[in-house]
C-alpha cells in the first residue's frame, strides 16, 4: 500500500465562484442559527420571573429563527439562480448524473474508500459522486422541505389572509394532517440536516487532510488544487 | 315449554307477542329493547340490548396513563367528568399519588354539580315526557295553573297566571304550526298519561325553565375545569391554581364568588322547582308502582365524595357504600373492588369473546375482544335484525356481577343502602317524602322510587356543594393554596409495573376503572360502568339484569305505544355510550 505524496505540477481549477462561496457560508450560518433557535422553540429556556413586558425571550428566539429563515430562503433563491448562470459546478448539486453508470461506480468507489477497502480516493474537480448524491437527496430536498414546511408554519402566524397562508399553509397543513404534524416533521428534518452537517463537516475536514485535493480552501478561495499529478484509472 | 325461571327468581315467558322498540329514545346512546307481551298486555319476557360499541378499552392500551382521563371522559358527554375523575383516581391509586385537600374539595364540587345537572336534565328532558303530556297542557286554565304552582311551591317567583298563559300560547302556536319538532309522534292520546292539564302545563313550563337553568349549574365546572362539557382534570390534583393575592391565577375571589352564586341558585332551583314537581307529578302516579326489578333484592354502591382527601374508606365517603343481596335490606356488605372473586364480568350473552365463557373475569384481568354473532333463532339478516335471540349473544354490554349477583346501581341503590345504614340525611329525606306522598316504604322499589331518589339526591348534592366550597375557602384561609401534587407526574419516576383502581358514584351509579401500568404505559384498562350493571344482558347462569327485571310484569296500555316500557327504562337514565364504551 502506498499513497506517496510526491511533488507535482498541476494547474489549479476555479470551481466555486464567489456567489457560491458566499452563499455557502451564509447558508451554513443561517442553518446553525435555525437549528439552535428551532430547538429552543420546541424546548424553551427555563422561565424568567418578573413582568411579562420586561422580557421578550421567546420573541427574540422566534425572531432570529424567522430572520435566519428569510436569509436562508433568499440565499437559496440566489443559489438556484446561480445554478442557471454560473459555471457547470454550480449545477452539480442540483443535477447529479444518476442516469450514468460511471456516476454510480464513483459512488461505490467513494464508499469503499470510506470503508478503508480501496487505498486511494479519486480526484474530482467538483464534488465527489457520493457527496453530490447526498447533497442532492439529503441537503437539497431537506432544504426544500424545511422551506415549505417553515413557510406553512409561518403562514399560520401571519393568518389566513397572508400569502404565506394562501400559498403554503392552506394545502401543506392538511397534507400532513394538522399543524402539530407539520411541527413534528419540521423538527424531524432539522435533525436530518444536523446529521448531514455533521457528516459533511467531518468529511470536509478528513478529505482536506487525507484526499489528494484541496477542500476547505476551495470553499474559501474557489480554487481546487491537487496534491499529486497521477491520473485516476 | 316457553317459561323459565332465572336463578335470581324471575320467570320468563316468551310465548306472547314480541314487541320491538329500536331505537329506545330519550336516553344517551343507542339501545334496543324487545319484550313479549301476554294476552293481558303484561310483559312476560324482556330483552335489553346495547347497540353500540367504540372500543375505548382497546384504544387505551399503550397510552400515557396521565392522558387516560381525557379518553375515558369521552366515554360519555352526559356524565362527563365522572369517568375523568374515576380515571385520575385509578392512576393515583396505582402510583400512590396523594392529592392536596383543595383538589379534593374542588373535585367534589365538580362531581356534585354533575350529579345535580344530570339528574335535573334527566327528570325534565329525558323522563318527563313519559308522565307529562304537552298537548294536554293546551287545555289548562292558566289561572288554575298559577294556583297550583303557588300551592306546590310558594317561593318560586314565576307563578303568575300571565306567565303560564304566555307559555301556553307559545306551546299552542308551536303545536298549531304543525311542526311539532321533538314532540312529533309522541303517544299523546294514550290513556297512560294521568296528569290534569294544569299539572301538564306547569310541568311543560318547568321543562323550559329547566332547559334554561341547567346551563347555569355546570358553570362551576367551567370555572374549575375551563369548559363545559368535558372539563379538564389532572392526575395529582386539579389544574386550576389558586392565588388570592396576585394576578393571573385561574382561581381568585371573583371566581369563588361566582361558584358560590351558582351553587346557591342551584340549591334554590331544586328546592323551588325540582322537588315540588316531583311531589306534584308523583302524587298523580303514586299507584303506578311497576318497575322495581331487582331493586328490592340486590343493590350496589361504591360510595363517593371523600370528606378528607385521599381517604376512600367507607367512613370517609359521604355517599353511602355497600352491597345488599338476596333482599336482606338490613345487611349491608362491604365491597372490595380489588378482590378477584367479587366483581367479575361475563360475556356468554355479550358480543365479545373470552377463552372460557363459563367464567367471569375480574377487570384487572379483563378482556375486550369484540365478537358480533347472532344466535340460531334470530330473525332477519345480519344487517337488518328483526328479532334477537337472547339465548345467544345479544348485546354490546358485558354482564358484570358482584359475587355472582346481578346488581342494580344508581341513585335508588344509593338511597336504599343509605337508608339501611341509617344515613341521617337520607333517612330524613326518604321518610319525609314517603309521608308527603302517603306511600309505604315498599313504594321505593319502583320506577317512581328511582325517579324520586334522583331528586332527593340532587337536594343533598346541592348542600354538599356549599359544604365543600366552605371547606375550600377555609383551607385557603388557613394558608393552604396547593392544588396539585406533581412529585410523581414525571413517568420516569414510576415503578415498572403497577395496578390501581379508581371509583366514583356516577349519576347512574357505581363506576370503576381498573388500570395496569407497565413501563409507563397502559397495559390494560377496564371500565365497569353503571349502565353496564343496570343494562347487562344475561350471565352464564341466566340471571337477568336490572333493566330486564324492571320491565317484567308491567302492564302496557297499548303495545304499539310503549310508553310504560320507556318509563321503566328511563327511570334508570340509561347511558349506552357509557355501558359499552
Amino acid at each position, binding site marked *: 500500500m502506498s499513497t506517496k505524496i510526491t511533488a507535482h505540477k498541476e494547474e489549479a481549477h476555479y470551481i466555486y465562484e464567489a456567489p457560491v462561496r458566499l452563499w455557502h457560508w451564509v447558508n451554513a450560518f443561517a442553518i446553525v442559527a435555525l437549528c439552535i433557535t428551532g430547538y429552543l422553540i420546541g*424546548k424553551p429556556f427555563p422561565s424568567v420571573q418578573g413582568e411579562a413586558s420586561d422580557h*421578550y425571550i421567546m420573541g427574540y428566539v422566534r425572531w432570529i429563527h424567522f430572520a435566519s429563515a428569510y436569509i436562508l430562503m433568499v440565499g437559496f433563491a440566489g443559489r438556484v439562480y446561480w445554478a442557471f448562470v454560473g459555471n457547470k459546478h454550480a449545477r452539480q448539486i442540483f443535477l447529479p448524473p444518476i442516469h450514468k453508470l460511471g456516476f454510480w461506480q464513483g459512488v461505490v468507489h467513494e464508499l469503499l474508500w470510506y470503508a478503508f477497502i480501496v487505498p486511494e480516493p479519486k480526484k474530482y474537480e467538483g464534488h465527489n459522486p457520493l457527496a453530490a448524491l447526498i447533497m442532492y437527496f439529503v441537503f437539497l430536498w431537506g432544504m426544500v422541505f424545511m422551506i415549505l414546511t417553515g413557510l406553512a408554519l409561518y403562514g399560520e402566524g401571519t393568518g389566513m389572509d397572508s400569502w404565506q397562508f394562501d400559498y403554503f399553509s392552506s394545502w401543506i397543513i392538511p397534507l400532513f394532517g394538522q399543524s402539530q404534524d407539520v411541527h413534528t416533521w419540521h423538527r424531524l428534518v432539522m435533525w436530518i440536516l444536523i446529521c448531514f452537517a455533521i457528516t459533511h463537516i467531518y468529511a470536509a475536514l478528513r478529505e482536506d487532510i487525507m484526499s489528494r485535493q484541496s477542500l476547505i480552501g476551495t470553499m474559501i478561495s474557489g480554487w481546487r488544487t491537487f496534491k499529486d499529478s497521477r491520473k485516476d484509472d | 315449554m316457553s317459561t323459565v325461571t332465572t336463578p335470581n327468581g324471575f320467570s320468563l315467558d316468551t310465548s306472547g307477542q314480541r314487541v320491538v322498540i329500536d331505537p329506545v*329514545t330519550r336516553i344517551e346512546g343507542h339501545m334496543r329493547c324487545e319484550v313479549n307481551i301476554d294476552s293481558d298486555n303484561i310483559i312476560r319476557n324482556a330483552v335489553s340490548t346495547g347497540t353500540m360499541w367504540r372500543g375505548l378499552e382497546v384504544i387505551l392500551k399503550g397510552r400515557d396513563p396521565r392522558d387516560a382521563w381525557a379518553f375515558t371522559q369521552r366515554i360519555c*358527554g352526559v356524565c362527563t367528568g365522572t369517568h375523568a375523575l374515576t380515571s385520575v383516581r385509578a392512576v393515583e391509586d396505582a402510583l400512590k399519588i396523594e392529592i392536596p385537600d383543595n383538589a379534593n374539595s374542588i373535585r367534589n364540587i365538580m362531581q356534585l354539580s354533575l350529579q345535580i345537572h344530570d339528574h335535573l336534565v334527566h327528570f325534565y328532558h329525558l323522563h318527563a315526557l313519559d308522565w307529562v303530556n304537552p298537548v294536554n297542557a293546551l287545555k289548562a286554565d292558566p289561572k288554575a295553573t298559577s294556583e297550583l304552582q303557588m300551592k306546590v311551591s310558594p317561593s318560586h317567583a314565576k307563578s303568575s297566571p300571565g306567565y303560564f298563559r304566555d307559555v301556553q300560547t307559545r306551546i299552542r302556536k308551536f303545536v298549531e304550526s304543525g311542526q311539532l319538532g321533538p314532540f*312529533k309522534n309522541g303517544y299523546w292520546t294514550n290513556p297512560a298519561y294521568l296528569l290534569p292539564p294544569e299539572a301538564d302545563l306547569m310541568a311543560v313550563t318547568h321543562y323550559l325553565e329547566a332547559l334554561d337553568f341547567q346551563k347555569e349549574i355546570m358553570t362551576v365546572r367551567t370555572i374549575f375545569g*375551563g369548559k363545559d*362539557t368535558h372539563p379538564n382534570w389532572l392526575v395529582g390534583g386539579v389544574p386550576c391554581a389558586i392565588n388570592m393575592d396576585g394576578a393571573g391565577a385561574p382561581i381568585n375571589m371573583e371566581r369563588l364568588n361566582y361558584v358560590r352564586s351558582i351553587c346557591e341558585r342551584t340549591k334554590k332551583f331544586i328546592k323551588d322547582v325540582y322537588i315540588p314537581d316531583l311531589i306534584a307529578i308523583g302524587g298523580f302516579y303514586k299507584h303506578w308502582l311497576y318497575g322495581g326489578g331487582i331493586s328490592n333484592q340486590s343493590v350496589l354502591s361504591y360510595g363517593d365524595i371523600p370528606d378528607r382527601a385521599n381517604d376512600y374508606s367507607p367512613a370517609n365517603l359521604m355517599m353511602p357504600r355497600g352491597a345488599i343481596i338476596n333482599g336482606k335490606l338490613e345487611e349491608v356488605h362491604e365491597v372490595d373492588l380489588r378482590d378477584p372473586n367479587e366483581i367479575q364480568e361475563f360475556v356468554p350473552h355479550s358480543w365479545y369473546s373470552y377463552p372460557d365463557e363459563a367464567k367471569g373475569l375480574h377487570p384487572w384481568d379483563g378482556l375486550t375482544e369484540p365478537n358480533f354473532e347472532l344466535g340460531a333463532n334470530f330473525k332477519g339478516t345480519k344487517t337488518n335484525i328483526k328479532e334477537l335471540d337472547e339465548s345467544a349473544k345479544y348485546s354490546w354490554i358485558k354482564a358484570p356481577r358482584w359475587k355472582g349477583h346481578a346488581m342494580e346501581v344508581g341513585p335508588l341503590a344509593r338511597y336504599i343502602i343509605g337508608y339501611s345504614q341509617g344515613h341521617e340525611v337520607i333517612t330524613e329525606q326518604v321518610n319525609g317524602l314517603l309521608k308527603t306522598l302517603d306511600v309505604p316504604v315498599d313504594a321505593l322499589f319502583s320506577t317512581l322510587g328511582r325517579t324520586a331518589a334522583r331528586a332527593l339526591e340532587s337536594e343533598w348534592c346541592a348542600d354538599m356543594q356549599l359544604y365543600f366550597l366552605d371547606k375550600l375557602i377555609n383551607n385557603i384561609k388557613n394558608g393552604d393554596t396547593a392544588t396539585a401534587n406533581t412529585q410523581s407526574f414525571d413517568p420516569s419516576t414510576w415503578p415498572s409495573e403497577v395496578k390501581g383502581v379508581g371509583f366514583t358514584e356516577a349519576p347512574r351509579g357505581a363506576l370503576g376503572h381498573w388500570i395496569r401500568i407497565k413501563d409507563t404505559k397502559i397495559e390494560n384498562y377496564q371500565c365497569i360502568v353503571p349502565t353496564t350493571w343496570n343494562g347487562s344482558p344475561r350471565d352464564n347462569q341466566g340471571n337477568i339484569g336490572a333493566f330486564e327485571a324492571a320491565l317484567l310484569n308491567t302492564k302496557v296500555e297499548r303495545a304499539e305505544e310503549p310508553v310504560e316500557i320507556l318509563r321503566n327504562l328511563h327511570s334508570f337514565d340509561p347511558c349506552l355510550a357509557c355501558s359499552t364504551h
Partner: protein
Amino acid sequence: MHETFYEVMRRQGITRRSFLKYCSLAAAALGLGPSFAPKIAHAMETKPRIPVLWLHGLECTCCSESFIRSAHPLAKDVILSMISLDYDDTIMAAAGDQAEAIIQETIEKYDGNFILAVEGNPPLNEDGMYCIINGKPFVEQLKHTAEHAKAIISWGSCASWGCVQAARPNPTRATPVHKVPGLANKPIIKVPGCPPISEVMTAVITYILTFEKLPALDSQGRPKMFYSQRIHDKCYRRPHFDAGQFVEEFDDEGARKGYCLYKVGCKGPTTYNACASTRWNGGLSFPIQAGHPCIGCSEDGFWDKGSFYERLSNVHGFGIEADADEIGGTAAAVVGGAAAIHAAASTVKRIAQKGDDA
C-alpha cells in the same frame, strides 16, 4: 303555513324590544358589527322554520350537551323558534318505529330542504353493526338521509375527524362523515371540537337561517368565522409566551401567576378554534384560563400525537413511538459517534501508513 322566527317569538310573548336585542346579540355572537342587527331582524321576520334531522352515530352525546348550554341564543329558542328539530333521538318523544317514521316523513315532505346534523360517526367494520339503529347499521340511516338533505353539519370532532373512537387502532373503523364511501355529495360544514363551543354551534345554525347560505368555509370545510385562528393567536397568556415565562409544572409559581402553559403541553399553537376569543359557556372561561393546557380537541387526530402534557408530539411507525428530538437526537448521536470512530480509524490508518513509508 310556515311561520317566521319573529312571529313565533312574538307569539311566545317576546317583545319587539327584546327581539331586537336578541338580534344584536346574535350579530355579536357571529362576530358581526351592530349594523348587521337589522339585517338579522329582517331575516327572522320573514323566514320559516327549517327542519333539522339530528342523527347520532358513535359518539358521547357531549355535542348535544354542549348545544343545550348555549347562552345566546338559548337552546330552547333554537328548538322552539328557529328550527324544527324533527328527529333527535336524545330528546324526541317518539321511540322505535314511530321515531324512525319521522325520518321518512321529513324526507317526503322536505326533500332537499332540510338540514342533516350529524353527531358522531359511523363505524364501517363488521358491516357497520358496531352502531345499530332499528336493527340496521347507522351508516345506512346516514347515507339515506344525506341523500335527501340540503346540507350536512358535522357536529364535533367525531363527525368532522373521527375523534376518540377513531384513535389508534380504531377497532370499529369509525369514519368521519366526509370520508364515508358512497355518502351523497352534499355540502358539509365541519364544526369540530370535542365538543364544539355551545355558542359556536348555535351561531352556525343562526347564520345559515339568517343569511340563507352556508357560512364561508376554510379549505378544510370549517366556518372561517370561528376556525381561522389558532388558540395561540388570541390567547391572553401570549405575552408570557413571548416573554419566555412558562408554567414548568402544575401548581408552581408560574401556574399561580398565569404563565404560558406551553411547556406543560399546550396545543394552543397548533389548534384552530374560537376558545380564546369566544370562550366557553357564555364567555365565562376556557381551558387555558382554568390552568389546563389546550389538548387540541378541535384538530384532526389530536388523540394520537403523544401525551397531552408534552410539547413535542410523538411519531409512530416501525414499532417505535417517540418524539422528534428522541428520534433525531439519537440519529445525530449515532452519526456523530460514527464520525468519531471513523476519524479514529482514519488516524490509525494514517499513522500505520506513515510507519510503512518510513
